[in-house]
Structures are given as C-alpha cells and as structure tokens.
C-alpha cells in the first residue's frame, strides 16, 4: 500500500461510480469480477484530510498457490496491492464539495433508489468539513436494512 490515507475514504472509479472504504482492508479487497472489470484502474481516492491520490492499477497479492487462485475464480474476495503515485493533491473544502456534488449527480440513480438524493445534496452543501461529508456518505453506503 503506497498511500497514506486517513479513513474513511471516498473513491471514484474510472466509470464514475462512487465507492467508500472504512478501512484499508475494504479499500484493497475485491472479487475477481470487480478486479477484472478494472475497478482499480485510474481510481481516484479522496481521504478524510482532503488528499486526493490516483491509483494506476492493482495487482493481486498473496495468490501463490493453486487453491487460492481457484477460490478467487469461484467468487471469493481477495486482497490487492495498489500501485500509483504516492504524492497527493490537497483539496480545499470548496473544491471537495464541487467534486463530490459532480460525482453524486453522476450516481443519482443509486441514491434515488433509497430516496435520499436530495437529502444528501443538502447535507454536502451545508457540511463544514471534508471528514464529515465522507463519514456521512460512508455510513449511508454501508447501512444495512
């Protein structure tokens, strides 16, 4: 892991969808389909301090024997090693809000599925810190019903 992130983090994949991670394990765990679809290629990570990192690619770590590779192919989750530039770009609160709102608009269908889109937009607009926004979005993302 080359990135020194403060969790939770918000990630934006190349295709534009949002994903949130509370720990390093959640950030670097994936299924074979997710990895093969290129989720980690050009992935943007914004941590709770407002540092933005870019991941170039990810390589599976620890798949040394045949049994582990077989488990990976039948759908078990495995860990990957993220490869990218460790240098971060610092985002201000205003810049982060713009970035987050743009991404939320792209992911509107997901938030509309729970009827929370407008609520989320209002929360982001009125938020006072980057950490607060990411924590709020992360708790909604992992909430189970």
């Amino acid at each position, binding site marked *: 892991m080359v990135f020194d992130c403060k969790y939770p983090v918000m990630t934006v*994949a190349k*295709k534009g*969808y949002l*994903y949130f991670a509370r720990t390093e394990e959640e950030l670097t*765990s*994936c*299924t*074979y*389909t*997710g*990895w093969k*679809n290129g*989720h*980690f290629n050009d992935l943007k990570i914004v941590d709770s301090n407002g540092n933005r990192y870019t991941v170039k690619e990810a390589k599976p770590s620890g798949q040394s024997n045949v049994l582990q590779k077989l488990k990976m192919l039948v*759908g078990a*989750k495995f860990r990957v090693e993220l490869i990218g530039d460790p240098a971060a770009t610092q985002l201000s609160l205003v810049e982060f809000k713009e970035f987050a709102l743009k991404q939320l608009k792209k992911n509107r269908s*997901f938030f509309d*599925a*729970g*009827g*929370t889109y407008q609520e989320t937009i209002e929360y982001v607009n009125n938020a006072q810190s980057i950490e607060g926004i990411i924590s709020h979005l992360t708790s*909604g*993302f*992992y*909430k*189970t*019903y």
Partner: protein
Amino acid sequence: MKNWLKRDRCEFSFQHIQSPMTPDKIVFRLPDNQSYKFDIRETTRFSNTIGIAQTSHTLRSEISLLYRTLDSTKQPFNVSARFIKMDISDDTYDGAKNQMWNLMPMKSQIMHQAVHGLGPNALGPLGRLWFGTPTWFKTSIFSTGGRIADDLEE
C-alpha cells in the same frame, strides 16, 4: 381536489392540475411536517409517447415505490428488469421500469452496487441474476424448468 390517504408513517395526496385522471404531482407529508413533491408528468409523457393510456396500475406502482422509498427506513430498491431495452431517454425510462413486479429490496447500497456489476465487490452473471431478480421471476424459472423435466421424464 385533494385526497389525503393516511398511512402509519406518512401521508400523501394527489394534486390534480390537468384532470383527475392524470394528476401532475403527488405530495408526500412526512411525520415531521416535511413535504416532498414528486412530479409524475414524466410518467405521463412516457405513456403518451408510446401510445398507452396511463393505467391505474402504473400510478399505483409509482405511489407504492415512493411510499416505500420515503418511508423512514429509506431502503434502496433495485430495478431489475434488464430485459427491457427501449430507445428512449433515461428520465422517461424510469416510469416504465419502476413497477412493483420489477423491484427488489436491497440489503444495502454496497449490495446494490455489486448487483449492478460495479465496484470492487461486483458479482458475476449468476450472482447478479440470483441477488438482483425478484423472487417471482426466479421461482417461475424453476417451476417451468421442473415441468419441462417432468414432461421429458414421461
């Protein structure tokens, strides 16, 4: 004309602007006196576009969906009919697919994302079929499959 229908957690009304048969807006009132307006003209326009009259089924489905999504749980719903492919814009498309028979409650947003085949936890084709399709459709597959197997046996 307003018809307020009370439910246990929220109430909603129809605002008939054009005619009683085609209400333009549904207004939800939540217990904390917040209101939420939903414009259903998109659905009506969709119905007019493809030449089908807006049925009460469509309207009931919209109300049911909104009622459930605006409920305090705010559970996300997956719209599962991947077989519907129509060459119309996204905003009108929702009116056709947000039907009661086509919705699947999701355990969480992360699960919803996985069912769409997105994110690091993306499911494969079988997983998406199993977790993202309503039970009635899956049981009908097994039912039909079982009957065919029975016929072949005989």
